[in-house]
């Protein structure tokens, strides 16, 4: 993961250094003299060669220093981590909505394949993945906030404020989750071991929730991880819609001001949290599927299976005796 993160820093660094904009001009305005500009560029380290800047940045990064914001002169790390909880809460709430709605509808849809319920939910999910979330957000504001006055349209200061943003992003995510859940469940429902479970006299509910769902969980969890990443990334858009003071908002402003340290920091933090979630999901795989677990436990496991293999013929014949 660390090499990937260094790579992310490099990618962002290369991109921003290719940028035609000049932060010094942006900061001092058009009236600044060339000398003032040059001095500021020196101060910001913009005149150093690319490699020097990169190594400096990574070195500082390893010490927890993400640089200093051009506009506020505050440490970027501080600015970001003041806002990070808001974005994390927002993304998590949306993911929870997405997971609950998506998984439930996906399961019912798969179990009742080709019924009216299935057809209707498939169409709704297709609509859900086609709708631009920022537009959906604006429509929700028009209906539920401006029209009905049920929820506030901007800010993120309490449960009442959370509803519209989480629903907007959550429902779009739910559509993706629903489609994945449905197809994963459909793969599982025709498996022989499901028939075995029914042949034991197990009830339909138990068959669904204790046999089918656990086997369909890996693709579902994978898509949930992806949705989390998309939610973090999408915060840059959705925080605009609902005026949520999170990282996304910080970054949009920073991009406008050519405030590169903040842009870099923001991208890095979002990429890092996405990677951490993916790592957690990889670990989760092992708990979901014992076959993956035994792959992880490595050589010890292999040796044991070999012993079993050697022992087995003896046992088979013992059974016959």
């Amino acid at each position, binding site marked *: 993961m660390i*090499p*990937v*993160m260094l*790579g*992310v820093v*490099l*990618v*962002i660094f290369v*991109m*921003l250094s*290719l*940028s*035609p*904009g000049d932060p010094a001009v942006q900061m001092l305005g058009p009236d600044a003299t060339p000398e003032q500009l040059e001095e500021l560029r020196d101060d910001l380290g913009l005149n150093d060669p690319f490699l020097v800047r990169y190594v400096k940045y990574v070195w500082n990064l390893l010490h927890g220093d993400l640089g200093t914001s051009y506009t506020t002169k505050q440490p970027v790390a501080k600015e970001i981590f003041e806002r990070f909880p808001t974005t994390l809460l927002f993304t998590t709430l949306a993911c929870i909505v997405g997971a609950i709605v998506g998984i439930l509808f996906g399961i019912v849809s798969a179990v009742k*394949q080709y019924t009216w319920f299935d057809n209707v939910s498939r169409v709704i999910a*297709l*609509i859900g*993945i*086609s*709708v*631009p979330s*920022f*537009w*959906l957000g*604006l*429509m929700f*504001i*028009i209906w539920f906030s*401006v029209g009905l006055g049920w929820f506030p349209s901007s800010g993120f200061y309490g449960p009442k404020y959370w509803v519209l943003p989480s629903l907007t992003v959550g429902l779009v995510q739910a559509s993706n989750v629903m489609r994945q859940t*449905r*197809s994963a469940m*459909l793969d599982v429902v025709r498996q022989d071991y499901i028939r075995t479970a029914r042949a034991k006299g197990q009830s339909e509910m138990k068959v669904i929730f204790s046999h089918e769902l656990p086997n369909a969980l890996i693709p579902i969890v994978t898509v949930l991880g992806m949705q989390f*990443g*998309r939610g*973090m*990334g*999408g915060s*840059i*858009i959705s925080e*605009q819609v609902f005026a949520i003071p999170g990282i996304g908002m910080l*970054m*949009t402003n920073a*991009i*406008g001001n050519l405030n590169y340290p903040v*842009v870099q920091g923001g*991208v890095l933090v*979002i*990429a890092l949290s*996405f*990677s951490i979630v993916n790592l957690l999901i990889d670990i989760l795989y092992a708990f979901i599927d014992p076959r993956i677990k035994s792959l992880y436990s490595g050589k010890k496991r292999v040796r044991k299976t070999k012993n079993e293999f050697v022992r087995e013929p003896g046992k088979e014949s013992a059974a016959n005796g």
Partner: protein
Amino acid sequence: MANNTVKAAPKKNSQAKEVWRRFKKNKLAVAGLVIIFILIIAAILAPVIAPYGYDDQDYSATLIRFSKEHLLGTDNLGRDILSRLLYGSRVSLTIGFISVGIGLVIGGLVGAISGYYGGVLDDILMRIVDIIMAIPSIILAISICAALGPGLINTMIAVGISSIPNYARILRSSILSIKQQEFVEAATAIGASDARIIAKHIIPNSLSGLIVQASMGVGRAIISAASMSFVGLGIQPPNPEWGAMLSFGRTYFRDYGYMVLYPGLFIFIAVLSMNLIGDGLRDALDPRLKR
């Protein structure tokens, strides 16, 4: 999946016909295709069919909700929204198709090389893909756009590049599975060159996944571009890209909701149509996957 395509490989034409026959049965997918065709025609004929120019301002007729002259109303500068939407379909559809083209060509190339040659090259390319994938694609696109500056071409490049990993991975994994099949071994055994094997055997057989992804990718690209315009990057006013119109209408949306309703509706319909086509293609290309 492999079996199916393998069997059909020698008779390409009849396979395409068969796919079309199955695709036709899916009414929703056909509807999607028809809508996209209408939008494309509208985009081409925009100067002919649009009642006004996209930047014709009429200060005597601002913020009209609906009138005989302005079916979808006018904005605060008195521009006819319907006309702007029709012109906008040129921009949005171009972005959608071209950026998918960029992603498809570069991503496809990376995936093909990576999957076919394997080894160190594969390792390096896939590490790069991993790095790019660690950045959520919208953030990547926005960063690229921030670096390159706004504008139509830059937007297409940004959206295109951010979709490269997706196509690279799809093609790579399908090549890996096809490479193991006997007809590829057979081709190698009779001394076919790498380029020939990739072009004649591997690409046709891994195409179906790519086609489906690409058709849905057009929809995603339209949304991405619109999102970027929405936060003020990407396409700039007065260019009537749908997302830019939405962004512009935001200032007035509490009182004049139609200014954001219609552009969003157009984005939604275009994306929905592409997704319908994608779903239909997936079922048509591999009926056994039908769900």
